[in-house]
């Protein structure tokens, strides 16, 4: 395989996947837009929200949102706005959705990022260790703990942690988001408990995935063969990890999915001003433009993550590379 044709093939593959991702997002945006009409009741009435539904107000809303035009035209207006950064206005507060989100996105990104880092540095090494000591007491204990962690719901764990480390021991603040800012130590301190909560649930999942992947590799013939050639345990471990890296990396997409769900719950539990909590309250208030915006953004992030995972798979696994080029 000449190197240049490989690179050409890989670029082509990524381009195809990118196109598929955009097509998927288009389909999702269709559905997201349709949420307005899915909601029971008159869309115009819903869009008015708490304001009085006088005929004049209803007519104004109908004009503003083009509700009398065909579905596709309405969609066209909406998607046009989205692509230029305008998601409309919150029914509840009247402020521009984009502005409302901008304040809150920072916290969610910080929270998710911290949780992800905590997860990776704890769960992956634990998973590798458990696989190497499969069947031992250590392995069985940690694995049982992981099963509990996977099943334990974020909010329940969060509240219990809140009670213990926040209330009783007073190590961490109980509620609130702290002073905003990427480098604000106060903010990060407030995020430790929620991030820990998330990391427990997701860490358990990542632990299981890592353990299963490494264990599967350890049972392969090439490990026996490598040992028989006199390779050091360290060299054998390098072989195993390089192979196990692929299934673990590709399932991180699934992990990301879980992370999103968990973030919503963590933010609500700890009263944090992130987009997760914003989504939850917006749903309760039927603040449809906000719901549409957050849902679409989430879908975009997840789709891009899936694309990134595919790219990693092509780069890391020569077999996938070969198949991608054919």
């Amino acid at each position, binding site marked *: 395989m000449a190197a240049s044709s490989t690179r050409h093939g890989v670029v082509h593959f990524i381009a195809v996947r990118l196109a598929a991702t955009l097509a998927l997002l288009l389909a999702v945006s269709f559905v997201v837009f349709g949420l307005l009409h899915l909601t029971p009741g008159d869309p115009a009435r819903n869009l008015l929200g708490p304001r009085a539904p006088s005929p004049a107000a209803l007519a104004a809303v109908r004009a503003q949102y083009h509700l009398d035009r065909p579905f596709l035209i309405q969609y066209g207006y909406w998607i046009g706005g989205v692509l230029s950064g305008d998601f409309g206005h919150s029914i509840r507060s009247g402020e521009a959705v984009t502005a409302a989100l901008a304040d809150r996105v920072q916290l969610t990104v910080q929270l998710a990022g911290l949780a992800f880092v905590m997860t990776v540095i704890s769960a992956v090494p634990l998973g590798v260790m458990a696989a190497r000591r499969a069947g031992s007491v250590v392995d069985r204990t940690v694995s049982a703990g992981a099963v509990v962690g996977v099943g334990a719901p974020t909010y329940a764990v969060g509240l219990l942690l809140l009670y213990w480390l926040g209330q009783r021991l007073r190590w961490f603040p109980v509620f609130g988001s702290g002073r905003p800012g990427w480098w604000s130590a106060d903010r990060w301190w407030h995020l430790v408990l929620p991030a820990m909560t998330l990391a427990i649930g997701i860490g358990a999942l990542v632990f299981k995935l890592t353990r299963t992947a490494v264990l599967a590799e350890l049972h392969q013939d090439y490990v026996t063969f490598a040992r028989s050639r006199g390779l050091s345990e360290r060299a054998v471990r390098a072989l195993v990890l390089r192979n196990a890296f692929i299934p673990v990396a590709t399932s991180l997409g699934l992990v990301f999915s879980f992370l999103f769900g968990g973030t*919503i719950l963590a933010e609500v539990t700890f009263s944090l001003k992130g987009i997760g909590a914003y989504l*939850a309250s917006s749903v309760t208030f039927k603040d449809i433009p906000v719901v549409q915006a957050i849902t679409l953004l989430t879908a975009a992030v997840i789709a891009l993550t899936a694309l990134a995972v595919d790219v990693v798979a092509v780069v890391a696994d020569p077999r996938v590379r070969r198949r991608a080029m054919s």
Partner: protein
Amino acid sequence: MSALRRLGWTPVLCGVPLVAVVACAALGSWLVPDATRQDMALGVVKAGSAGHLLGTDKLGRDIFQLSIAGARSAVVGPVCIAIGSMVLGVLLGTLAGYRGGWLDIGLSKYADLLLAMPTTLVALVVAGLVGGGYWVTVAVLMVLFSPTDIRLVRSAVMTQVTRPYIESAKVLGLADRRIMFRHILPNVAPVALATMLLNVAFALVGMSALSFLGLGVGPGEPDWGRQLSDARKLLVANPAAVIAPGALIIVTAAAINLLGDWVQERAERSARQR
């Protein structure tokens, strides 16, 4: 007794709390008929006070009784979700895995699409906007869980389809339907049942998460997730109001998960021998 010992301590250890929970779910209205009785005059009371083992919440409801009553919503909905999801999974997964072709491609794309979205988020948005309610949430979760089961059954079926015993059945001229249900299904069933059990745990967590966020059960109904949501503000006044439902959810989910893992391991072991 020796039969129990042969099983191993996992199913026994997990079985005990689960039997207790199921008993509470079944007999709840008989055991604690007025669990939801409010006592505004009393208000919040700490655990260990007279007549209230775990104290009360801000509406004066006894936490202990409320927790027992909450077992029902923790069992009924999740079990329905798991069963419904697996039924869909078996029907669609078997067709997709056996027939292949457009049906398979379409179903796979559908499953991929659904699996890409976080369950909680989609359930929140759909069930929330359409209008909460217990059975609406159950239906939504059933649909959201089905892609995993469809995928699982499909891949199990596809493994069997290439095996010579299925090809022999085809050469014998047996009808497709007979091959699918009499030959493939019995060999796919153990893994499917094990997954169904695990799905109950995930459904439990999912349902209570949604009721925590305000969906699912109605405002006055006993439900562990709702209890947690109500009790957030009572962390200082009566921590038991938070600990009781939280611990119950964690223990029940963990017990089902451990039991499900054990069943899954046995199913896989017997599948490997085949």
